[in-house]
């Protein structure tokens, strides 16, 4: 009997997911990244587990921004683990001047509470945030981030989100100043962070 109820629930969920997939219009899925110089970056407000978070809350710190999603099976964990390892190699004084923000572009599945748990697993100083699809799309455009939901013919999941996997660096004044490439090893992440920390 309960198995039947589960089946019905599963059916409803599948229908809901299918509906979402039909209405989801991915943002510019494939186009070369524009030159970094053309990207305006800038302030934004999203939701963290403890309420709204704005980039300007971190004024005075070098901020690392990463756009991804917690259902990401390998790309996000690879990037975040490398960045977290880099953060751990900083001195306490350096770490006090650095912040890391994980922005989920999959708000359907990633609640702020889930994001908090996820981000803190990698580093206690990592903040997890998300927002409405419109808000995220607008921020992504300003930062040159691309993401697109793709149905994948895998028995285990409904969709994956292809996404750009660089880590964006925002300086103490809130200006987008650079990127750390995906799969940069931790010791080079440290060098990159120090480069921006030591900029006047």
């Amino acid at each position: 009997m309960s198995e039947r109820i589960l089946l019905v629930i599963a059916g409803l969920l599948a229908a809901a997911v299918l509906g979402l997939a039909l209405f989801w219009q991915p943002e510019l899925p494939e186009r070369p990244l524009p030159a970094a110089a053309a990207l305006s970056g800038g302030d934004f407000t999203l939701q963290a587990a403890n309420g709204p978070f704005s980039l300007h809350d971190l004024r005075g710190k070098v901020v690392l921004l990463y756009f991804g999603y917690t259902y990401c099976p390998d790309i996000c964990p690879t990037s975040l683990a490398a960045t977290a390892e880099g953060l751990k190699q900083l001195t306490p004084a350096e770490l006090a001047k650095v912040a890391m923000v994980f922005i989920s572009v999959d708000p359907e599945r990633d609640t702020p509470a889930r994001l908090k748990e996820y981000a803190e697993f990698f580093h206690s100083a990592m903040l997890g945030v998300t927002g409405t699809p419109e808000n995220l799309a607008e921020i992504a455009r300003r930062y040159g981030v691309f993401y697109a939901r793709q149905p994948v013919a895998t028995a285990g999941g409904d969709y994956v989100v292809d996404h750009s996997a660089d880590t964006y660096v925002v300086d103490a004044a809130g200006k987008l100043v650079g990127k750390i490439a995906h799969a940069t090893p931790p010791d080079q992440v440290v060098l990159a962070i120090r480069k921006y920390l030591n900029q006047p």
Partner: protein
Amino acid sequence: MKKLSLLTACLMFSAGVLAAAADQISVDKPYVRLLPPGVQTTGAFMVIRNAGDKDVKLVKADNPASRVTELHTHLNEGGIMKMRPVAAIEIKAKGEALLQPGGLHIMLIDLKVPLKEGDVVPITLGFDDGSSKKLDAKVLRAAPEAAMSHHHH
């Protein structure tokens, strides 16, 4: 039952005569990546070596911890990372296949119970000649020493 053991005997016999792919294969530093709470999909990584003089294809993997096991790779297309299933992973004769974060890997999809650090996941690799190999992969937070830097020497 009798039929099954006969079949097994036949398989073992033919394996002995033909030298099954699995006999040429050794696996180094296998591990499963520990992921944050609530994440039900993770990756298994390892170095697969082929001591034989014929190329071998890994065509499937299985494990009891997840509902689905797939072979995957990463594609970097114009800076956009894509993760897609692959039909096979080739291990060249006298060569090796590197399964590591950011590249080829075995995906454990839809875990039945959350994995804890130090858990051991038995994984069965299946090769293109039908032979298979079992290994134990420990759940680790980060790659074991040398598994990542293996490329460089």
